[in-house]
């Protein structure tokens, strides 16, 4: 039993940590546009814990659903995303809400992310003869072009790279003022949450920097697992571990652990 004020050691895997840690960034009363997979689960978790009036948008054309626990859809374009929603609208129109400025955070997963927060979900290797052709942007490019973006991902050297093979969803492009110069005058990288760290951005340089460490992680371990030279902020903090309550709710939402399977470190 957990008693107030006494830390109880709870066990969790890296995917659960990323999910819970990113859910904590979503504030009550805000609007989040969530991608499929872990972002979807994490946004629902935030809504069921600290952010009761968080409004979730899904690309299928949904405003403000209450997705049923245990019925998390494998796509944000299927009907189970719309349970008890406030409004259902055409895909183009829900995406355009971001262009109008109604979305506080875009929330995406990342196969490969670089130091400028650019996300690749299209090609590994050469564009013409890729080693792996990934599924593509979906609404990812629109979310990253038009909103402030939170990325949830596993921390690995091959995933956090100096330069992505292909910019599917734009972060700060090549750093500095390049994003604004390209015409993307709103939005941009906000946070990247991994199982080792919470990363932010130096807005002037447009590059990623280390802001917080996940429980048990060290600056050395984070640097070892990052494919570029990572700046460390002065006021570095250590994030608190997932609570029993957060894990309890997470397990109700995803009882089969479809989204939070343990991953190697």
């Amino acid at each position, binding site marked *: 039993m957990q008693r107030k004020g006494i830390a109880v050691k709870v066990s969790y895997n890296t995917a659960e940590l990323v999910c819970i840690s990113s859910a904590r960034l979503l504030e009550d009363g805000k609007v989040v546009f969530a991608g499929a997979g872990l972002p979807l689960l994490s946004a629902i978790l935030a809504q069921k814990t600290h952010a009761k009036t968080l409004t979730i948008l899904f690309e299928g054309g949904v405003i403000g659903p209450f997705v049923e626990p245990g019925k998390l859809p494998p796509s944000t*374009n299927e009907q189970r995303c719309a349970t008890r929603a406030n409004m259902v609208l055409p895909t183009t129109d829900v995406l355009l809400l971001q262009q109008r400025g109604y979305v506080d955070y875009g929330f995406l997963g990342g196969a490969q992310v670089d130091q400028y927060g650019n996300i690749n979900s*299209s090609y590994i290797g050469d564009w013409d003869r890729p080693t792996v052709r990934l599924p593509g942007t979906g609404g990812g490019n*629109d979310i990253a072009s038009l909103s402030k973006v939170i990325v949830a991902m596993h921390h690995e050297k091959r995933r956090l790279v100096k330069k992505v093979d292909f910019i599917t969803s734009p972060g700060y492009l090549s750093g500095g003022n390049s994003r604004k110069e390209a015409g993307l005058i709103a939005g941009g990288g906000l946070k990247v949450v991994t199982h080792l760290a919470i990363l932010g951005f130096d807005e002037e340089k447009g590059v990623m920097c280390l802001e917080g460490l996940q429980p048990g992680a060290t600056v050395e371990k984070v640097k070892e697992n990052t494919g570029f030279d990572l700046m460390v902020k002065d006021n570095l903090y250590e994030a608190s571990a997932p609570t029993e309550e957060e894990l309890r709710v997470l397990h109700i939402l995803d009882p089969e652990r479809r989204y939070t399977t343990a991953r190697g470190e």
Partner: protein
Amino acid sequence: MERSYLELREKVEKKDKGLREKVKSLSEAVALIPDNVHVAIGGCHYSRTPMALIWEMIRQGKKGLTFSKSITATEGDLLLVAGTTRHIITSWFSPGVTWGVSRIMRHYVQSGEAQYEEWSHMSLGLRYKAGAMGVPFLPARSMLGSDVFKRLSNVKEMSCPFTGDKLALVPALNPDVAIIHVQKADPYGNAQISGFPFMDKDIALAADRVILTTEQIIDNSEIRRTPDRTDIPFFCVDAVVEAPCGCLPHECYGVYEPDFNHMDMYVKLMMEKSVDGVKEYLDKYFYGPETFEDYLDLFHVKDIVKATLSAKKGYSG
């Protein structure tokens, strides 16, 4: 692929726009689709996919078709393996995040055998919308600066003549044919969609020809009692086919959820045996059955009952 405004108007002007019955069989309707044209597929991902029409197109051995669809799921695999297409315009292509990346998409695209022309989801929606509006392009603040933009040959950048803001201009997409599945349509083609509308209204208005499949053909008097629920007007539509369970194994809002057991079975076969696995699937489910009803006979009643009962809960979950 940009088409002239007057040519697009002429196609519409020449249509028989009378209030007339257009009910056809699946094979008659698919016979209206020539080879080597652009077919837009309604629905999105594995929702409201016009599977009955895709089933029949594959069986009729259509060739050289270009497909566009907002997000492509398992039907994209089937159309590639069957040889119906080598060019798909879409924003995302795989069965779904928990099922992994399509081995079929990877096989054909990585080898250069097929082209996956990638647009952002909103840009693709604006392309259909421009097509539906009868304008040659729409501006957007998306895709700028990305490699998605660089990889495309038919997107442009401009400075807004009013504000000076940089904008991406996405060209109108006017498909030769649109294939769309709906819950209800009358014999004239007035169609009522429940659940997510996706991009279907724009697709129908953008296309030269529209072929509908519907869970149920309803009387025109029912349409006239609820005209505010009509999404596609009859004069856009060229054929109406009654196809109950016409999306299976994909979902149709309010009628059935996806047949997840079938989807799991398909994905396992596709991921384990790639092209050979999908050929096996096509033999059993597409080429084997004599009619679409015989195709439906291959599904398991208990799975369909489950999918149907869940779907009846609708938005209340």
